């Protein structure tokens, strides 16, 4: 079986078979008509593919379409395919069509590595857009490094990584968590003095909280005013923790920094509201709650709480309005679940502009060769839906704006604070790893800074 064939190719084959059969077996005029039309269509396709010159460029899409992560990752596949369709509609890249190869790693970390191997070695894709969780990224990393593949990773993450084979279009900790806490400490943000760091028990929350703790201590927040707590995946009973938060926040000046992931959010926010705590008493600043998650939640207990991202669907720019409308139209046209009711959010935007940045780089390099494209990505600028972004000159990450938003009843965000210009990404945090830097132009990846 040919693993690379895409859906539209398959349907083409089918229709031509069918048309031939009908053409031969039926003497009715309608069948002649249908057959002729299908033949013509096929000829047209042929003509197009010849005009488009040589083979299409294959790109891999590595997002979980089933299992626990499907809830978040399916939207990323959708937006990547939409971006590809956009580019193809405008004539493709270097005069060639882009052909997406979609695989389903099914929220299984081993399968991520296996599927990425298949994409790189068997399908020989030029680039892969994929992954959500840090553990999935970590498990494909060796495959990409060994085979010199190229991965565009669109989700905010904990940093401490500087791979030559990954472009990180999501935020590093200094582009999300750190400014969020700085905002809460500022007079404008409420001047909070006590911080409850609450997360799910895995690498992203733990590393983020390590950095935040170091930062808070550096800013002279006493140890007693910082609490750190973790819950298992799928934790459902937040009674004790909310009780602790209540005690911690007595007397005011306390806030919660939440890196709670996935399905634990609903029970947490519900319990928080039901125990009589309000956003005014202790706001929850979340780094993993975006519009796409809010779409399916009862937003009542969340209203007034905060989140930090680099993009919101509510960003008021012309290009964003078009992007949101396009995405909704795309979902409706392709009969994706929820169709027009779909929303965009930060990872969706990052996945979207990742495809375009790659396309620009390929055009600049004039070929799809990984090393040439990588060099061309450095310094690449793109007018993303949330505003112009810039790829760093050496550390493989993205310069992005930071936005703090307040959750509204309709599941959207109201931006309450915006960074001045773009924030430079720091894969190695200045608080936990001040001596380390990441640079692939003047150094070989991670290097020791000279004192």
């Amino acid at each position, binding site marked *: 079986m040919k693993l690379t064939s895409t859906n539209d190719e398959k349907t083409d084959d089918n229709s031509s078979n069918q048309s031939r059969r009908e053409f031969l077996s039926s003497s009715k005029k309608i069948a002649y008509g249908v057959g002729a039309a299908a033949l013509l269509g096929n000829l047209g396709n042929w003509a197009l593919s010849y005009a488009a010159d040589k083979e299409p460029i294959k790109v891999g899409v590595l997002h979980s379409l*089933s299992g*626990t992560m*499907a*809830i978040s990752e*399916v939207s990323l596949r959708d937006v990547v395919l939409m971006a590809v369709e956009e580019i193809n509609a405008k004539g493709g890249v270097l005069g060639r069509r882009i052909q997406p190869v979609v695989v389903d790693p099914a929220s299984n970390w081993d399968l991520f590595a296996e599927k990425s191997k298949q994409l790189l070695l068997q399908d020989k894709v030029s680039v892969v857009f994929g992954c959500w969780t840090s553990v999935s990224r970590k498990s494909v990393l060796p495959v990409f490094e060994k085979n010199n593949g190229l991965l565009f990773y669109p989700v905010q993450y904990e940093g401490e990584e500087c791979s030559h084979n990954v472009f990180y279009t999501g935020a590093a900790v200094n582009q999300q968590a750190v400014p969020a806490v700085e905002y809460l400490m500022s*007079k*404008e943000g409420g001047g909070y003095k006590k911080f409850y760091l609450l997360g799910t*028990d895995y690498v992203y929350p733990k590393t983020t909280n390590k950095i935040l703790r170091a930062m808070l201590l550096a800013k002279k927040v006493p140890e007693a005013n910082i609490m750190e*707590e*973790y*819950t*298992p995946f*799928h*934790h*459902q*009973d937040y*009674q*004790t*923790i909310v*009780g*602790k938060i*209540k*005690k911690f926040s*007595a*007397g*005011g*000046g306390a806030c919660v920094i939440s890196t709670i992931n996935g*399905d634990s959010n*609903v*029970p947490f926010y*519900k*319990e928080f*509201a*039901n*125990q*009589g705590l*309000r956003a*005014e*008493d202790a706001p929850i600043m979340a780094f993993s709650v975006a519009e796409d*998650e809010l*779409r*399916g*939640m*009862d937003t*009542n207990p969340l209203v007034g709480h905060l989140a930090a991202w680099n993009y919101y669907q509510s960003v008021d720019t012309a290009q964003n309005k078009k992007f949101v409308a396009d995405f909704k139209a795309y979902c409706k046209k392709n009969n994706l*679940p*929820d169709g027009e009711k779909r929303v965009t959010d930060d990872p969706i935007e990052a996945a979207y502009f990742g495809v375009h940045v790659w396309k620009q780089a390929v055009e600049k390099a004039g070929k799809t060769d990984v090393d040439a494209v990588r060099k061309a990505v450095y310094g690449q600028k793109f007018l993303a839906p949330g505003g112009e972004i810039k790829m760093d000159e050496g550390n493989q990450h993205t310069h992005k704006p930071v936005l703090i938003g307040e959750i509204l009843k309709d599941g959207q965000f109201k931006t309450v604070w915006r960074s001045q210009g773009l924030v430079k990404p720091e894969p190695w945090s200045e608080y936990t790893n001040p001596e380390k830097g990441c640079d692939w132009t003047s150094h070989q990846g991670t290097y020791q800074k000279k004192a």
Partner: protein
Amino acid sequence: MKRVVCLVMIAWVAICGRGEFSAAEELSAMTLEVEGALKDLSSEDAAVQEAAVNALIAGGDPALLPKLEEVRATADRSVRMAIKPVIDLLKNKAKLASPDSNDRRSAATDLGSLGRPASLPWMQAALQQEPDRWVRYTLEESIQLIRLSSSDPEIQATAATKLGALHSQNAVPHLKELTAASSEGVARASREAIGRIETWASWANGFETIFRGISLSSILLMMSLGLAIVFGLMGVINMAHGELMMVGAYATYVAQELFKGYVSPELFDYYFLFALPLSFLAAGLCGLALEATVIRFLYGRPLETMLATWGVSLVMIQGARVYFGDLTSVAAPNWLRGGFQAMVGVYLPYNRLFIILLSVLCVVGIYLLLFRSGLGLRVRAVTQNRNMSACLGIPTRRVDAYTFAFGSGLAGIAGCALTLVGNVEPGLGQNYIVDSFMVVVAGGVGKLAGTIVAAMGIGSLNKLLEPSFGAVYGKVLILVFVILFLQWRPAGLFAMKGRNADA
């Protein structure tokens, strides 16, 4: 009667009329001053600005809010910061008169944390006519909190003592600062107050821990009751039990959507009462179908049953994902939102109280059905000795089907109740299935009393361990305890005794 109504109406009109009149009079006198202050807000001079802010606060007229918002919309950052307290204070003053006691209470809390002495007379006035006990409590707490930062040591000392009497947890950080105060009287009063508050807090904490334990136990019990019947009485290892809960949860979702679509919005809050029987029926019917198509052929072959039901569970999960999508939510009805304050520092959420009540009702229902009804008699007979029951003319097949459907229906009710505390998603059942099996096994297979006691034990133990060990290790420790316990008593808490023990 009519006359009384008339009199009341006349009096009301008179009061309103007078109120309007005096307000209008005041307004004309104030207008000039207020206009000036509003203008001064944008002044470059910090002193002028501050004077304007103070004047506006002293005026305390919530009617100014739209104007202030207008100023804020166009002003630069420093002005926005300057008028923020004015807006906050006035907003909360307006909220003090709200008909909703929650609004009044949150306004009182906010005024306390804003800490402006100007708000003292407002709160005192509100205190005079406040009917709700807990709003009164909060008002008093806020008043004393503001007084605590007074410059007069005598006022500070009385405020500290009063806060101690109020057991105000919110005051502790401020009181701690005051223990080092220069005035000996204030320092002593603060120390005493802290002592009182903390003794109270440890009591309150104890109560809350007990409540949390009971609440978690009730959830565990709801989840495992159905399993106790299916697994305990019938010996069927149903791995799809969690998915039957999911069916119940989705039935609740469907009920909600039906009410949204077809019933008038005033009745929306009652959808949950409709959802309870609906989820029982939906899950029960699913159970009936599952029994008739899969389990019926596998009685007495536990391993095959396990594999087959596990397969069914995967099909059901994916089916729910395809049909409902990943994102659905059930909004708790208003009457199950928020909570009720039992005493200072102890707040009991309605949704949890409801689940506790529901689990008690379920236990009573099961008891009545199993031990006080004809069907129950037959069920027990079949579980004790299938062949003998068959000989005596009990239709064992039909009894099996009913029992299984009943157990499944209970799982549906559990799923419905779980929507109040958690998610509605295809993987919902997977989160709970392990816990349910743990409860049933630890309690002793085949004994309902064992299930109840095990649920209580595991729930309370979990909540006792969690504060000191954290959620992750709390869970680990529970599993270790259960394993050790089963080493000690392999048959569980209430073991089957006698001739049927091995059957």
